[in-house]
């Protein structure tokens, strides 16, 4: 505990140079823009920025990416409140109470509360990150090939289950498709080239970043252009209060604490991201509220719960990303790829090999939090202007970046082909209500699953029993079976009464 605090303070001191603060400022601001513009998601922002910052120093590059991530998740609340269109899926729950507040002329106050909620949620998450990650890493040191195999399976199953909009089946299919993508190219045990379809460029496999830029960038551009034009009616006459009342924040202390913890825990679950964190916090706050009837009609408590919940997911999703190399959300998957590019190997050894790195990440999150608090409370009018950029101008610009990004990493036109192909595939799958998070998770976990299974079978001389009898393995098996059972229609119907009605009413497809 004390060690964690010391590590955090030391890392913060090392990071807080004027140059780094400059990076924090522009990256957070850019993140808020990306988040507030419907059609630009946090995942896309982080993926594009990874390709464009790979020439920077390791710490600066990671700092910039984290600021983008935190900023984008927060920025989504702007358009949710002002336009009733969540800027990113993470803010779908925010619009339920944020937009009614704006209609009553309290848009400024709603945005201030959202800012405070986001900042406090991230801070709760940071505290839990520093507390949970080191013990989790030491537990993970006991993971062998058998456990890593089940961890990969668990990640796909739980992510497919929780993000599959109408049926978990589509989530599972998306996950399997991602795993299949990971099968392409040279495999990690015997270096045999699989499924290269006669194309030499595929021998090295499909890189995550071009695929993500396609599935989250190009696909999003296509989705935005495909949809009928939404009427943008931002009310720019903000006359009400732009600062949160401390009295309100104190009144919501339990809501904020609860939502922060729920958001962080949702973040830890592999591939289950900010949107679910927001819905889960919102549902929990409503159930324990003294005024549940206000929810959906402009409840400040509900707004705070949703924004605290989605922002707390960010540090939460980095907990498994750093200690297990299993991403807690889609943007965290990109961050793992970025860490590898910059020579950091996330996984159980990180606390031994680079014991201070975890605290650097916590300090980066903290700097980003300060960034959103400062910009969120001061630059309200600017963000409203940004919301008025017409999509005809914005979308081709985004696509231009989607072309530069993948090419910048490897200088191969092949990566642009990958981006385009995944864009088209992502568009079609998204229209058909397939969630994108399990697909991404599959691409990143495919090699782990493949290598762990075959390594485990070599260790046991082809015997399957250790996969079921070792204690941690057995635990994973039990959880996976329960998860799949919970996805079957009868169980699902019973459970669905808790969260589903809320989610379905405002479902925002794709992530």
């Amino acid at each position, binding site marked *: 505990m004390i060690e964690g605090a010391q590590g955090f303070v030391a890392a913060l001191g090392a990071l807080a140079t004027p140059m780094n603060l400059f990076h924090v400022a522009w990256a957070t601001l850019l993140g808020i823009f990306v988040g507030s513009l419907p059609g630009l998601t946090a995942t896309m922002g982080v993926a594009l920025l990874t390709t464009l910052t790979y020439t920077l120093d390791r710490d600066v590059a990671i700092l910039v990416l984290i600021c983008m991530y935190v900023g984008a998740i927060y920025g989504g609340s702007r358009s949710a409140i002002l336009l009733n269109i969540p800027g990113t899926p993470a803010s779908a729950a925010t619009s339920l109470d944020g937009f009614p507040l704006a209609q009553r002329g309290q848009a400024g106050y709603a945005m201030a509360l959202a800012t405070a909620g986001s900042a406090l949620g991230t801070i709760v998450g940071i505290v839990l990150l520093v507390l949970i990650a080191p013990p989790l890493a030491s537990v993970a040191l006991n993971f062998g090939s058998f456990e890593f195999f089940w961890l990969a399976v668990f990640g796909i199953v739980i992510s497919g289950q929780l993000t599959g909009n109408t049926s978990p089946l589509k989530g599972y299919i998306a996950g399997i498709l991602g795993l299949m993508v990971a*099968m392409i190219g040279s495999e990690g045990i015997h270096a045999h080239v*699989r499924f290269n379809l006669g194309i030499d460029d595929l021998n090295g496999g499909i890189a995550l970043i071009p695929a993500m830029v396609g599935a989250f960038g190009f696909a999003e551009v296509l989705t935005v252009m*495909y949809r009928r034009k939404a009427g943008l009616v931002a009310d720019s006459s903000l006359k009400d209060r732009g600062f949160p009342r401390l009295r309100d924040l104190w009144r919501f202390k339990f809501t904020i604490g609860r939502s922060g913890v729920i958001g962080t825990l949702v973040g830890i679950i592999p591939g289950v991201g900010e949107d679910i964190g927001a819905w889960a916090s919102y549902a929990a706050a409503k159930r324990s509220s003294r005024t549940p009837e206000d929810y959906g009609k402009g409840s400040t408590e509900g707004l705070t719960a949703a924004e605290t919940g989605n922002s707390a997911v960010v540090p939460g999703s980095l907990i498994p990303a750093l200690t297990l190399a299993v991403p807690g959300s889609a943007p965290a998957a990109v961050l793992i790829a970025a860490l590898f590019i910059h020579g950091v190997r996330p996984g159980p050894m990180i606390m031994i090999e680079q014991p201070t790195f975890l605290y650097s990440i916590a300090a980066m999150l903290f700097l980003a939090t300060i960034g959103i608090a400062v910009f969120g409370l001061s630059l309200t009018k600017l963000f409203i202007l940004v919301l008025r950029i017409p999509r005809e101008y914005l979308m*081709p610009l985004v696509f231009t970046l*989607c072309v530069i990004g993948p090419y910048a990493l490897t200088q191969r036109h092949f990566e642009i082909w990958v981006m385009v192909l995944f864009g088209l595939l992502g568009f079609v799958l998204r229209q058909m*209500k397939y969630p994108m998070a399990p697909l991404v998770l599959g691409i990143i976990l495919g090699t782990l699953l493949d290598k762990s299974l075959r*390594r485990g*079978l070599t260790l046991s001389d082809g015997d399957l029993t250790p996969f079921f009898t070792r204690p941690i393995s057995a635990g994973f098996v039990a959880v996976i079976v329960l998860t799949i059972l919970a996805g079957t229609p009868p169980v699902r119907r019973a459970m669905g009464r808790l969260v589903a009605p809320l989610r379905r009413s405002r479902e925002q497809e794709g992530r």
Partner: protein
Amino acid sequence: MRFESATSDRITAAVFFALGAAMAWGGYTMDRLEIRQIHPASIPGLVPMILGAALMLCAALLFVGAREDEPEGEGSWEHFLVAAGWSIAYALGMVGQMPFALATAIYLAGFVGWFLWRDVRPERPVVTAAGVVVFSVVTAIAISALFRYGFLVRLP
């Protein structure tokens, strides 16, 4: 044709089933590397076989369980085709064949221009057209310069 209908679910189920079968077959016939004396449980085709079978199972369940969802607002196929076609032409056709800034300027002007004329129908076409051209050229040059000199990224 709508994306979220029982029919489209059945069609994709068939496609996925075929894909799963192809991968399972590919895994089954994959080189077992006997010459390298590897452990028979670590053959490269093992996981593709499992994944292929899993996808076939899921596809079968999808086919059986396909049912109508409440339809959502439909989009515009014309918009989609123009946006996709023009973007692909830019990414795969123009980039690399001509200077990046030029390709980007042409792409931006085409994209913005088409959608403005299609959706908004400007009242003063000459002024709007000039605005679009200026926007495209300035943006294309700015992006190229920013990434080349700011982020030290090599452009196509």
